[in-house]
C-alpha cells in the first residue's frame, strides 16, 4: 500500500461523510476512519518488512516544492496514534446528536487527514500547509458545535485561531529563510545545512514560537483552558489527544535537527520552561471548578514534561517523550470522554454540582478510576513507561530537573484524586446517574486496554520508534 493511499482514504472519507447526509454521516465517518486505521496498520507491516515508505513528486517547480511524504518509525507511530484515536473519538460521540452532523463528522475526518499529513510530510512547505490545514476544521468544530455562551465562545476560539496562526507564521518565515539557504524545503536538505549559531538561534526561536503556542508551553498556554472548555468534547479530544502532539512531534522532527546548536546552548532554559509548565499546570489544576478546565491544565502539565524530555536531546528523553505522547493521547481522550459521559447525564461540568456517583454506577467508576490512575502514571500503565523514561532522562541532565519534574507524580495525584473524590465519592447523589451504555463502555475499554497492554509490553512501540530517533539524534549531533 502506498503512503498516499492513507491520506486519500481520509480525504475521501471527509467528502463521503459530507455527502452521505445527516443520518449516515457518523457511521460513514467511523467506517472511513477505521479503514484509515487498517491502512496505517498495513503501512506498519510494510515498514516492519523493511520497505521504505515514502512518496515524492515535484509539486511546484519554482520554487522547488515537493509533494514528499515519508514514514519512518516515529511518523508511523504518530499516524497510528491519529488513526487509532479518530475512530474512538468518532465512536465516543455516538451518544450525542449534533445539528448538521454531516458537516461535523466530515470536519473530524478532514482534521484527521490534515494531522496525518502533518506527521507524514517531509517537505517543509507541505508540512506547513498540512499544519495550518488542521487548524481550520477545529476552528469550525469549536465555533459552531461548542457549548456555553456563543459570544464568549467566539472570543475564545478566535483567540485560539489567531494566536496559533500567528505563531505558525514565524515558522513559515523560518522555512522561507531556510529555503533561501538550501534551495529546497526537503527535510533532508534542511538538516544538512551548515548554519551559523546565530542563524540557528533565530530559526530555533521562530519554530519555538509556533510550537510553544501549539503544545502549549507556559506562558503561551492562555488559549488552552478556555477553548477546551468551550469546544465540544469531540473537539477537545482532537485538540488534546492529537493536535498537541503535532507540536511535540514537530519539535523532535523539525526544530531539533534543524537547529541543534541553539537547542544545546539553551537546553536548560527550555527544559526549565517545560518543568515550570508541569508545576504551574498542576497547581492551577488544583482549584479548577470546571472539569474540562481541570483536565486542560492537567494536560498542560503533562505536555510540559514531554517537552522537557524532548529538549534533553538524549535518546531516553526523545523516546520517553514519544511514548508519553502516545500514552497521554489515549488517556486524555478517555478522561474527556468521562467528562462527556457525566455531562450527558447531569448537564453540567461544574465539579461542585457532582458527587456521589459511585454508588450508582460501578462500571463507570472503575473505568474512571483506571483512567485517573493511568493519568497519574501508576506503574503498569503506559503513562508510567513514558513518564519514567522522561524523568530518567531529566535526571541524566540534572537531578534537580528530575526532582522538580517529579513533583508531577505528587501534585498530579493530588488534583486528580481530589477531582475524583468530589465527582464520584460521597453520599449518593440525588440525581439519577445511569451506568455507562454499551457504546460508551466499549470506547473506554478500548482506551484502557491500550494503556495496560503497552504499559506492560511497550517493546513494540519502542522498537518502532528507536531507529528513527537514533537518526534524529545523529542529525542533532552533526556539529560535534
Amino acid at each position, binding site marked *: 500500500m502506498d503512503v498516499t493511499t492513507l491520506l486519500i482514504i481520509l480525504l475521501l472519507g471527509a467528502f463521503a461523510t459530507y455527502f452521505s447526509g445527516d443520518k449516515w454521516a457518523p457511521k460513514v465517518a467511523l467506517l472511513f476512519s477505521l479503514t484509515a486505521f487498517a491502512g496505517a496498520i498495513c503501512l506498519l507491516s510494510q515498514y516492519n518488512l523493511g520497505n521504505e515508505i515514502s512518496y515524492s513528486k515535484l509539486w511546484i517547480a519554482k520554487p522547488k516544492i515537493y509533494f514528499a511524504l515519508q514514514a519512518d518509525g516515529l511518523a508511523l507511530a504518530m499516524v497510528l496514534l491519529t488513526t487509532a484515536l479518530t475512530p474512538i473519538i468518532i465512536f465516543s460521540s455516538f451518544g450525542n446528536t449534533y445539528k448538521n452532523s454531516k458537516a461535523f463528522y466530515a470536519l473530524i475526518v478532514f482534521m484527521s487527514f490534515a494531522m496525518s499529513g502533518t506527521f507524514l510530510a517531509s517537505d517543509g512547505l507541505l508540512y506547513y500547509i498540512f499544519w495550518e490545514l488542521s487548524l481550520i476544521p477545529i476552528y469550525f468544530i469549536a465555533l459552531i458545535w461548542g457549548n456555553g455562551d456563543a459570544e464568549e465562545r467566539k472570543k475564545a476560539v478566535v483567540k485560539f485561531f489567531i494566536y496559533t496562526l500567528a505563531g505558525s507564521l514565524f515558522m513559515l518565515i523560518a522555512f522561507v529563510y531556510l529555503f533561501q539557504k538550501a534551495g529546497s524545503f526537503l527535510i533532508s536538505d534542511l538538516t544538512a545545512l551548515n548554519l551559523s549559531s546565530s542563524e540557528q538561534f533565530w530559526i530555533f526561536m521562530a519554530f519555538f514560537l509556533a510550537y510553544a503556542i501549539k503544545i502549549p508551553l507556559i506562558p503561551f498556554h492562555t488559549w488552552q483552558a478556555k477553548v477546551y472548555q468551550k469546544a465540544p468534547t469531540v473537539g477537545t479530544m482532537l485538540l488534546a489527544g492529537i493536535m498537541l502532539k503535532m507540536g511535540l512531534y514537530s519539535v523532535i522532527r523539525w526544530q531539533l535537527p534543524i537547529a541543534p546548536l541553539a537547542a544545546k546552548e539553551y537546553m536548560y532554559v527550555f527544559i526549565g520552561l517545560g518543568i515550570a509548565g508541569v508545576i504551574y499546570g498542576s497547581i492551577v489544576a*488544583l482549584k479548577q471548578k470546571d472539569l474540562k478546565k481541570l483536565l486542560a491544565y492537567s494536560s498542560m502539565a503533562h505536555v510540559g514534561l514531554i517537552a522537557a524530555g524532548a529538549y534533553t536531546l*538524549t*535518546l531516553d528523553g526523545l523516546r520517553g517523550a514519544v511514548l508519553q505522547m502516545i500514552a497521554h493521547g489515549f488517556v486524555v481522550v478517555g478522561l474527556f470522554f468521562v467528562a462527556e459521559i457525566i455531562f450527558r447525564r447531569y448537564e453540567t461540568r461544574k465539579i461542585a454540582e457532582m458527587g456521589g456517583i459511585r454508588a450508582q454506577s460501578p462500571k463507570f467508576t472503575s473505568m474512571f478510576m483506571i483512567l485517573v490512575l493511568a493519568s497519574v502514571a*501508576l506503574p503498569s500503565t503506559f503513562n508510567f513507561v513514558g513518564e519514567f*523514561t522522561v524523568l530518567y532522562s531529566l535526571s541524566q541532565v540534572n537531578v534537580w530537573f528530575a526532582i522538580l519534574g*517529579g513533583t508531577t507524580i505528587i501534585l498530579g*495525584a493530588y488534583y486528580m*484524586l481530589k477531582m475524583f*473524590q468530589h465527582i464520584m465519592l460521597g453520599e449518593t447523589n440525588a440525581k439519577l446517574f445511569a451506568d455507562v451504555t454499551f457504546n460508551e463502555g466499549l470506547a473506554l475499554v478500548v482506551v484502557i486496554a491500550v494503556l495496560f497492554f503497552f504499559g506492560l509490553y511497550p517493546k513494540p512501540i519502542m522498537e518502532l520508534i528507536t531507529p528513527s530517533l537514533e537518526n534524529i539524534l545523529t542529525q542533532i549531533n552533526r556539529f560535534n
Partner: protein
Amino acid sequence: MDTNLVLVLLLAPFLGFLFNVFLGKKAGKNVVGIVGTLSVAVSFVITLYLFANASQEPVVINLFDWISIQRFDISFGFLIDQLSILWLLFVTGIGSLIHLYSISYMHDDEKMHSFFAYLNLFIFFMIALVIGSNLLMMFIGWEGVGLCSYLLIGFWYKNQNFNDAAKKAFIMNRIGDLGFLIGIFIVGSLFNTLDFTSLRTTIESAKDVSDLWIAIAALALFIGATGKSAQLPLYTWLPDAMAGPTPVSALIHAATMVTAGIFMLTRLNFLFDMAPSVQNIIAIVGACTALVAATIALVQNDIKKVLAYSTVSQLGLMFLALGLGAYEVAVFHVITHAFFKACLFLGSGSVIHGLHGEQDMRKMGGLKKAMPITFITMLIASLAIAGIFPLAGFWSKDEILMTAFNHSNNKALWVVGSIASIMTAFYMFRLIYLTFFNSFRGTEEQKHHLHESPSLITVPLIILAILSFVGGAISLPGHSWLNDYLAPLFTKVAHEEHTLGSTEYMLMAIATIGALIGIGIAYKKYLKDNTIPSEDAEITGLSKVLYNKYYVDEIYDSVFVKPINLLSDLFREHVEKSLSALVFGLGKVTNEIAIQGKKAHNGSVGFYLFAFVIGVIVILTYLFLQQFFI
C-alpha cells in the same frame, strides 16, 4: 524452579481479583469469600512448596524486556531467593488468615465482593513487590499496594473524611515514591542496571563510584521507604488510614504493606552498607519515630489509633535496626510484629464488630466475660508486643535493643529504644484494661447484644496468638535459624552472633523489667484506680499536645497544603488572567494602530494623490541614495 509455578503464585490472587470484580456480585457473598480466600491460600501453598524446595542460589526468571533505557534494559522478571520467600510466607500466610477473617467480618457489607477484589489485588501487588527482580518491578508492586491501600481506606466512600484519609495516604506515599524514583534514577545512572543480582555484583566490584552519589541514592531510596513504612516525617497517613475496615488495617497497615520499606532496605543492604552516613540517618529517624509515635499512642482513645501509632513506633524500631546494619534483626521483628500486630488488629476488629462499630475505648470495658477468646488472644499479643519472656516480641525487640546497645559507645539510641518499649508496654495494657476489664460503659443496647464473634473470626485470632507466642523460636540468641537462612543475602558477615554474656542477660533483664514497669503503671492507673480517660474537651497540658499528635497534621496543613491551595488560587485568579491579558493586549495594540491608521484614510482623493506622490518621491529618493551607501 518452575516459571509457571511462580506465575501461578503471582496470578492466583489476580484471578481472584478478576473473578470478584466481574462475577462477584452475581456469585453471592459466600462464593466471593471462598474464592478470595482460596486464591490467596493457593499462593500460600505454593510458597510453602518453594520454601521447602528452595535452593541456596537465588533464582531469576526473566519474562521479557519491559522498558529500555539507552544504556540498559529493564526486564519484566522475578527473583526468588530467601528474602522473597520469607516475605511471601507471611504475606500469603497472614493474608489467607485475614481473608478468612474477612468472610465473617465483612459479611454484612453490601460491597463485600469489591472488598475481596481489592484485598486480592493487594496480595497480587504485594507478591509482585516481593518477587520483583529489579527496582522497577518492585516499584510496580510498591505503587500497586499504595493504590490498594487507597481503595481500601476509602472503602466506605460515602464518608468524605474517609476519602480524605485515603487521598492523604496515597499522596504521602507518592512523596516517598518520588524519592524512590530519584533513587532508581541515580542507581541506574551509576551502575547501569536495576537488577538486584547484577546490582550487587556491580556495587561490590565498583571502586570508582563517588561515595556522595551513592549516599544520595541511598537517601532517596530511604525517603521512599519512609513514605511507605510511615516514618518521620511522612508517618501521618498511617493513623488516618484506620478509616478503612479493620481487616485492612491488620493486613495492609500493620503486617505487610508498611513493611515494604524494610523489605526494600534489606533487599538493597549492599547499597546501604556503602553509605554509613545514611545508615546513621536511618537509625536516628527510626529511633525518633519510635519515640514520637509511642508518646502519641499513650493518650489516644480510639482503639485502632492506639494500634496504629503502636505500628508506627514498632516500624521505627525496625528502622533503628536497619540503620545499625542489623538487617536480619529487623526482618525478625517484622515477622514477629506481623504476627502480634495482625492479631491485635483482628482482635480489635472483633471488639468493634461486637460493639457494632464503636471504636472509642472510653465506651468499652468489661468485655472479658463476653468475648473470652478475643480477650485471651489479644492479651497474648499484647504481652508479646510488650516484650514479655518468652513470647515472640521479647526476642525480636530484645535483639534490636541489644544491637543498639552494642553498636557504639553512644547509648542514646538504646535509651530511646528502651523508653519506647516501656511506653509500648504501658499503652498496650492501657488498651487491654480499658477494653476488657471493669464494667461496660457503653449503651444498654450495645450491652444487650454483646457476644463472642463467630468462629471464622476467632480461628485466625487463635492461630495468630499461637504464632505470637512461639514465633520467637525462629531466631533465638545463639542459635538463630533466621540468621543462617538469610545469611547469603548480606555482604557483610552477618553481624556477629550475640554470645550470651552477662551484658546480654542484663539487657534482657532491663527490658523485661521496663516492660513490667509499664504494665504496672497501666495496672495501677486503669485497673486499680479505674481511671477513664477524660472527654476530648477536657484534655489539657502535655496530654492535649499528645492527644492532638503534636499538631503535626495542622502544621503540615498550614505549611504545605494551604500554601499550595493559596498558590493555586493566586495562579488561577491573577497570573492566568494577566497572562491572558498580555495576549489580548497584543491584539489591542494592533487594534489601536488600526484605529489611528484609519484616520489617514479620510476618503479625499486630493489627499490620497498627495500621499501617493510623496510616496513616489520617497521611494525614488531611497533608490537614488542607495547607490551611494552600498
